């Protein structure tokens, strides 16, 4: 009897051990370029132990098979955040309170609002908490969108035109640049100036926006547009945060894929946690002005390869673990739903999708991110290229920037309506 049990156990053990071994997939080598031609052969392979097909979220597979998206793969590498940012995140645990009744977060000073390690999948407010993290200063107290250009790219015809802009965002709260953590009277969360510098017909057209430090979002943004043609700043409506930037297919709300605080949306929901291929180590040079007004100016975008608006072959994708968060914007918003795939350890969006008002897939957002050391030594990871693709029109306005965190010498008075007017001359 014992022998029978022993024999059965050995067989069972053999089955238990042997079955997984027989199904272990082949590891896809680093450097593989996932594309339409090889997708079927690699989709069930693994990379860093994860199935390749499982790391193709949302419309990735559709873009690979139907629109020539190619994904050169590299091994993942940890991206540590600045120590000050992480230590303030720990301090936030003692002070920050989430108020389920109005979805606000109060008591925040700096760092992340909520330690993502503490966010539970079954928490009905997990989505709100993670988006609150995203809407603090995530990559420095001051952002210089240096050399930023939107390139208008048609899937068939390629580059159509370029719009060059000058932009800075200045956070008044949560500043970790060595100066005061909070500036002003506490009423303002951040200020943004965005001014077109090229071509001539939009040169001098810009906006200045104040987003107030009101967790309820009941205080609308104050936004002014400066129109050089009339040399006058004109007040815009408080709903302009959901308008497109210039003639691009990107909304102001698509800044960083998701720019609105949770309470501007009707609801948010944490859908899950997964590993995806994402761009966390973009090239160091994303705007090369030696090749100004040619496609070589934008080396991180494959403008010479149809459909002209995906990341360039030199850009490598790596496995990143992300939260998948879905949001329902207000009814007047152009989107009926937006989904973001965002790093689990810190709020860095890699990919997003938006549905139109009829619930149909409309846009995808591929953001290239990389490390940056601010002029004050602040360690951050930030987006440097954003591929905003309108799939209805098969058209993209892809921005590229030599983004800089905490640029030296920029103060609160440098990001004002007055500054907008002085630049927009």
């Amino acid at each position, binding site marked *: 009897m014992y022998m029978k049990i022993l024999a059965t156990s050995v067989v069972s053990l053999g089955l238990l051990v042997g079955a997984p071994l027989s199904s272990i997939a082949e590891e896809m080598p680093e450097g593989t370029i996932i594309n339409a031609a090889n997708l079927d052969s690699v989709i069930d392979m693994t990379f860093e132990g994860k199935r390749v097909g499982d790391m193709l979220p949302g419309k990735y597979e559709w873009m690979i098979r139907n629109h020539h998206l190619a994904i050169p793969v590299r091994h993942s590498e940890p991206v540590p955040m600045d120590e000050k940012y992480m230590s303030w995140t720990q301090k936030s645990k003692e002070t920050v309170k989430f108020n389920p009744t109005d979805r606000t977060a109060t008591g925040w000073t700096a760092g992340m609002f909520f330690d993502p390690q503490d966010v539970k999948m079954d928490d009905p407010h997990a989505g709100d908490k993670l988006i609150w993290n995203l809407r603090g200063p995530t990559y420095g107290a001051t952002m*210089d969108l*240096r*050399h*930023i250009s939107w390139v*208008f790219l048609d899937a068939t015809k390629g580059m*159509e*035109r*370029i719009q*060059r*802009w*000058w932009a800075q965002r200045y956070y008044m709260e949560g500043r970790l640049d060595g100066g005061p953590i909070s500036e002003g009277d506490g009423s303002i969360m951040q200020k943004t100036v965005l*001014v077109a*510098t*090229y*071509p*001539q*017909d939009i*040169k001098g057209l810009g906006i200045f926006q104040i987003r107030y430090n009101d967790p309820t979002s009941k*205080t*609308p943004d*104050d936004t002014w547009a400066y129109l*050089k*043609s*009339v*040399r*006058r700043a*004109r*007040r*815009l*409506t*408080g*709903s*302009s945060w959901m*308008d*497109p930037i*210039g*003639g*691009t*297919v990107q909304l102001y709300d698509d800044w960083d894929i998701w720019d609105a605080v949770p309470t501007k949306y009707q609801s948010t929901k944490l859908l899950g946690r997964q590993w995806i291929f994402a761009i966390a180590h973009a090239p*160091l*040079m994303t*705007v*090369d*002005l*030696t090749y*100004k*007004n040619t496609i070589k100016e934008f080396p991180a975008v494959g403008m010479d390869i149809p459909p002209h608006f995906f990341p360039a072959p030199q850009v490598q994708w790596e496995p990143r673990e992300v939260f998948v968060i879905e949001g329902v914007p207000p009814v*007047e918003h*152009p989107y009926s739903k937006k989904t973001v795939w965002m790093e689990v350890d810190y709020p860095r969006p890699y990919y997003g999708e938006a549905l139109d*008002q009829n619930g149909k897939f409309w846009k995808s957002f591929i953001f290239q991110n990389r490390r940056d050391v601010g002029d004050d030594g602040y360690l951050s990871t930030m987006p440097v290229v954003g591929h905003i693709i309108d799939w209805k*029109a098969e*058209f993209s*306005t892809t921005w590229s920037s*030599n983004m800089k965190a905490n*640029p030296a010498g920029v103060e609160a*008075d440098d990001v004002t309506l*007055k500054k907008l007017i*002085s*630049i927009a*001359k």
Partner: protein
Amino acid sequence: MKKYNSNILKTMGFLLCFGGTFATSSAFADGHLASEPSCDTCTGGYGEEWSWQISGYARTYFGMGLEDHEETPEDDKFDLTMARATLLIDTDIYTGPVSWKIVSRFDREYKTDYMDSLQRITAGTSTAGEAGSSNNYMDQYNTNHLQEFFREYYADFSLFDGKLNMRVGKQQLVWGESDFFQAMDLVHGFDYRWRLFFENNEDWRKPLFLVNFDLDLYDELGGSLNFFIRPGLDRDDDVGSNYNIEGGRWIPHPYRGVDFTAFTDYNADHTDGSQDDPTFGFRWNSEIGSIGYSVAFLRTFNPTPMMNPANSASTALFGVDGTQSHFSEAAENGVLGDWIYPHINVFGVSANGYAQAIDSTLSAEVAFIPNKPFNFGQLASDLPGWGGIIEKDTLVTMFRIDKEFKLGRYIGTNRPSLSSVQLFDTWILDHSDSDEIVEFASFGAQKREHTAYLTVFTLLNFKRDTINPMFVAGTDLSNGGGFGIAAVEFVFGDDWRVKLEADLWWNDGDKKNTASDNIGSGFNNQTSGVGGTLAAGTSNPLGFREGNASLFDWFADDNQIVLKVTRQF
């Protein structure tokens, strides 16, 4: 020197006109005009520490009239009223703490058949005939002087750790909130001669040499103080607004081809309106909550030229009864008088804010102008308004509501359509019909106590702002009539822009006719030569006497199509 400059500029214009737009298209196509360092540590985009940038455009304008004009013997329908070429060069230079701006513009027009016809009429009505002002007829539209070419040139710098920002040089300073009309935007005059009011303000505003200060007092008082002084270094031609009294294509009907400068003069040395006298202003900008507001005082020139009438045989010839009085000093022009821009003081308040309940932006502006000058009297003559200048306290009020309509899901616009409704009222306090105030000297309709304009516009954007229609309409609530503009701009890549525009007018039937039209009765029943002592049978260049036609009636025959082709660089 002026003649020398003029010849150079004319030669440049010849090269430019109609060919310039295309000639420049390849020259700048590589976009290598800007000297910008290729680094990833410099601030980029604007204002490198030491750098310069040039941009601009070459543009041609073609205007085609849709109606015949009584003044000309030909049928003008579908004739070109404008064929214009412009080269604009926008230069930014950054030299450490000081940045420089130079905006230069060169305009040249081809004399179309219509303009040739007006010139021939001008030769007939000018006292000097062909040798008179008509000889340089197109000068009114062309760049003829270096100060016209260099429209703006100024330096920007800061003092006291950025507290005081200064802009010194020839520039445009815009105050106020109103669209289309000016309440507080009175620092500068406008040149309405070549395109009336259809262009962007910056294109027809007349820049002035100013020392412009902006003192940041946000830390101390929660606002900023903008103040300027115009020291009086400008040319006489640079102050006040121009209304095409040269008899060109935008002088009101029935004066096409009647060159008033042949028998009147601009006088910028008048004791109450001398260009040499400094003008200045102060404006406090601040916020109360999220309501932005400004309070301002401005000493400037009355934007509309006022007729300081002569008392002469010529005025008598046109029925002026000799009771006219001059304004402070006698007119230098002894034929009909001087056009002057008297100084005025303006006290203004503006405010703007966002009304969340209606998702709209509200703006308001009030300007009080004590003793604002108006022409008056002599309404029964050929020269209404020639009685002199009367001063009246005047209150100008604007209220506007802006709203963005999200039309994308209905008509496919790619972004919300900015739409606006504005009410603009000019209220003459202590108005009396017996004052016989007129809107503009030479038109007999009395100006009412209130002159109110209602304007609306909406901007549409399709295909990522590459097809941009716009619709504008305005009406004179006090006198009737109005205008409408329907335009569409096409964007082709970085370089080319094409805009097609229909400028349309409607009126209530009032009209001042030319003397060659023997129509009307009563007050209008004026056959040639009965105006005053004008000899019988002599054609009266000032047309029939009429006392009802108001602003939009003056342009009732000016429906037209305009095409603009722009090559940017």
